[in-house]
């Protein structure tokens, strides 16, 4: 079955989803000379350099510059957009856009259905999970344990970091509790910390905060990032199985832009990782797709898989799909078969497809336990210029509060430091919002220029990626009432936070206050989405200090948990190899497999798990 062919619609594997996970699975299988049909619902943008640039110039002329703004809407494979989201009134669903939202909170995260997936607009931040993130139940009595440990996944973290090109410093990461195998080094040196990072780092030296009666350090460290930096000359690649270092291997060579490999060999400080890196110094799955061996991989974009069919033995017997020539135009039905099937279409889309197929749901967990890193911000005006809008969107974070005994009581958090000021602050929209507000005050001439030059560079924004526990009522479902233009299901989402996360949001304010005080920022120049509630409101949260707070948050774009992995078929959708408990030739891979969220941006961990799973897939195909 390993003869390359394109006539017969049967393959060794069908991979659904042309994002980073699907691209890596396709690469690993095709490198082993297995035939792969890679199906992507969206268009195949960016396969040439000039084609990719067309999305950059499109971004320039978009008035609303949200995460999906460079990528034109596609009625045949719609994606959620921030501009479609509204605050949900209790009891009234939000029917705007692609996602149908029933609340009680707005699920304000987006993803992108286009070749390359959400890595086209991702930030590129790639921290590993901490060992304790894999065993939350055992360590702290909350959530659930993963069916794999950190040590199980560590070799694949190394492979994933070398595959996508991560810039980071091993010692710095060890300092926040990440263990590494002997001899391992990140492929590239860390991206330099921005000037504003340096100011905050200096101001917070020796700072500690109390969380649940213990003190923890507030330590700034450089973020691991999938953005090109200077190759580490001492680093040697991991061996093919990730176990051990190949002493004879060559140091890492940065991968430049698709179709123009001399461009993008370093991060050039475009301040635009989200929603598009103009030079492709940031990893996107297009780089992996570009190098796929097309003798073995058949790539078909503009093809929306609508159903998995199941035979009498419980094996998946095929995929049914609709392909389209033009976005929003007529569709053609098709079908293909394979020995194994791999769903890599994103946590929401994977769940939708399983539900639409009546597949893999013996545990009733498909679509449930939808999680994100609810993101809460504080912002302030520093006394002097922070030099913002000059580098990648983020270059450092505070990783020292990602773990601790307090996790018995409330969520841990990873703190990110903005290099672009009040980017996520409601209605701030720097610097355009600053221009509009100045014009509304009839400012003009040199006074306008001086005013903007004074207030914008002093903006500081501290953000908190909060942990969220798996809760079965937070879920994606489908309904015949809600379909898109080609008759596919729209995701119907029910989502809310529990006290575990709300309390953490209140705690996060303490950390912000401590940082701002050290920076010499007066109270009047500090701002919180999270505020003492002055009005009675059913949305108020009564915190442990007895006060009521009116809390708010946005999404981090870290969809997790909708097809979680586990040790038992009764409470999980896939096993430790991300294979369906119910269908032995079906794998469901990606962030949807995460049992808990930890605090790390999830893509790197999803890639590591996927690489691990490909070895199991190959054992089935041999």
């Amino acid at each position, binding site marked *: 079955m390993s003869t390359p062919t394109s006539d017969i619609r049967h393959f060794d594997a069908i991979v659904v989803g042309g994002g980073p996970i699907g691209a890596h699975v396709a690469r690993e299988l095709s490198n082993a000379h297995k035939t792969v049909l890679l199906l992507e619902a969206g268009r195949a943008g960016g396969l040439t350099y000039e084609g990719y640039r067309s999305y950059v110039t499109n971004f*320039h002329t978009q008035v609303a510059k949200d995460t999906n703004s460079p990528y034109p809407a596609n009625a045949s494979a719609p994606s959620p957009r921030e501009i479609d989201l509204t605050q949900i009134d209790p009891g009234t669903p939000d029917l705007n856009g692609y996602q149908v939202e029933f609340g009680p909170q707005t699920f304000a995260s987006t993803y992108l259905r286009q070749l390359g997936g959400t890595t086209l607009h991702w930030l590129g931040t790639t921290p590993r999970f901490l060992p304790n993130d894999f065993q939350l139940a055992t360590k702290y009595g909350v959530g659930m344990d993963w069916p794999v440990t950190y040590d199980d996944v560590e070799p694949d973290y190394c492979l994933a970091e070398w595959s996508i090109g991560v810039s980071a410093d091993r010692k710095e990461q060890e300092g926040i509790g990440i263990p590494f195998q002997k001899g391992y080094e990140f492929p590239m040196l860390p991206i330099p910390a921005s000037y504003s990072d340096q100011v905050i780092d200096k101001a917070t030296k020796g700072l500690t905060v109390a969380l649940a009666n213990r003190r923890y350090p507030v330590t700034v460290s450089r973020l691991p990032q999938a953005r090109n930096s200077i190759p580490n000359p001492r680093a040697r690649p991991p061996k093919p199985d990730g176990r051990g270092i190949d002493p004879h291997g060559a140091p890492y060579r940065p991968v430049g832009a698709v179709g123009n490999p001399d461009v993008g060999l370093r991060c050039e400080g*475009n*301040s635009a990782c989200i929603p598009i890196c103009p030079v492709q110094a940031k990893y996107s799955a297009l780089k992996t797709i570009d190098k796929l061996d097309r003798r073995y991989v058949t790539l078909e974009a503009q093809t929306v898989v609508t159903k998995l069919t199941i035979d009498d033995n419980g094996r998946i017997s095929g995929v049914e799909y609709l392909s389209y020539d033009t976005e929003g135009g007529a569709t053609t039905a098709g079908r293909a078969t394979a020995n194994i099937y791999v769903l890599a279409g994103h946590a929401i889309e994977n769940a939708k497809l399983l539900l639409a197929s009546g597949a893999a749901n013996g545990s009733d967990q498909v679509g449930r336990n939808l999680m994100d890193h609810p993101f809460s911000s504080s912002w302030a005006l520093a006394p002097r210029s922070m*030099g913002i809008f000059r580098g990648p969107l983020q270059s450092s974070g505070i990783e020292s509060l990602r773990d601790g005994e307090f996790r018995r009581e409330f969520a841990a958090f990873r703190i990110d430091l903005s290099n672009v000021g009040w980017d996520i602050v409601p209605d701030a929209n720097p*610097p355009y919002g600053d221009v509009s507000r100045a014009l509304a005050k*009839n400012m003009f001439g040199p006074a306008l220029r*001086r005013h*903007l030059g004074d207030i914008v*560079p002093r903006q500081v924004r501290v953000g908190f990626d909060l942990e969220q526990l798996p809760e079965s009522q937070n879920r994606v479902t489908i309904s015949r009432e809600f379909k898109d233009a080609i008759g596919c299901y729209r995701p119907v989402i029910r989502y809310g936070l529990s006290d575990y996360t709300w309390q953490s949001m209140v705690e996060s304010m303490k950390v912000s206050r401590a940082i701002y005080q050290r920076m010499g920022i007066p109270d009047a120049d500090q701002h919180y989405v999270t505020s003492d509630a002055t009005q009675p409101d059913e949305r108020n949260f009564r915190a442990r200090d007895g006060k009521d707070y009116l809390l708010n948050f946005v999404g981090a774009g870290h969809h997790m948990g909708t097809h979680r992995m586990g040790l038992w078929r009764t409470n999980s959708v896939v096993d430790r190899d991300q294979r369906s408990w119910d269908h032995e030739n079906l794998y469901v891979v990606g962030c949807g497999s995460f049992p808990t969220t930890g605090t790390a941006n999830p893509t790197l961990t999803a890639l590591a798990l996927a690489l691990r799973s490909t070895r199991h897939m190959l054992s089935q195909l041999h």
Partner: protein
Amino acid sequence: MDHDRAVAAHHAPDSPLQQFVSLSVTLTGFDDAELWGTGLVNTYYALFPSIVGDAVFGDFMTRWNYTHRRGAGDASQLHTLVRQQILDDPDFGPLARNLISLWYTGQWNQLPAAWRNVHGAWANDATFIVSSAAYSEGLVWKAIHAHPIAAKQPGYGSWALPPDGEEPA
């Protein structure tokens, strides 16, 4: 010689184009070399009448000429007059703010309903960004000592250096 004379007339201090530039200099706080350096003077000069018509644009420029002459030689007086005669004016204020918006962000903003109740709503009067170049040349980025996001990138590691006027951290 005809060509040279035509160019000279076009750029003469009292030519309509130069009056447009002098208004732009006064409203933006950037000098004429900086504005010409964007390559967008002619684009914006042509854009205004294409959206609001020659008559409205002509009245706007006439108001500026009148204001400019009255305030000539006294910067403080001119500033006060520009505020009173142009920015606070219900007819010309919205146009002036749109001119500043174009220069600072490359964006034309749909004129306010109150303005449209008097002058009518024009077909091309929608909020839009003029072009990729107009976006990239937005003066706001210069004003905030930065570069336009996703364009004119400053280069690897530049973000680690202190911004203008600041000491190393």
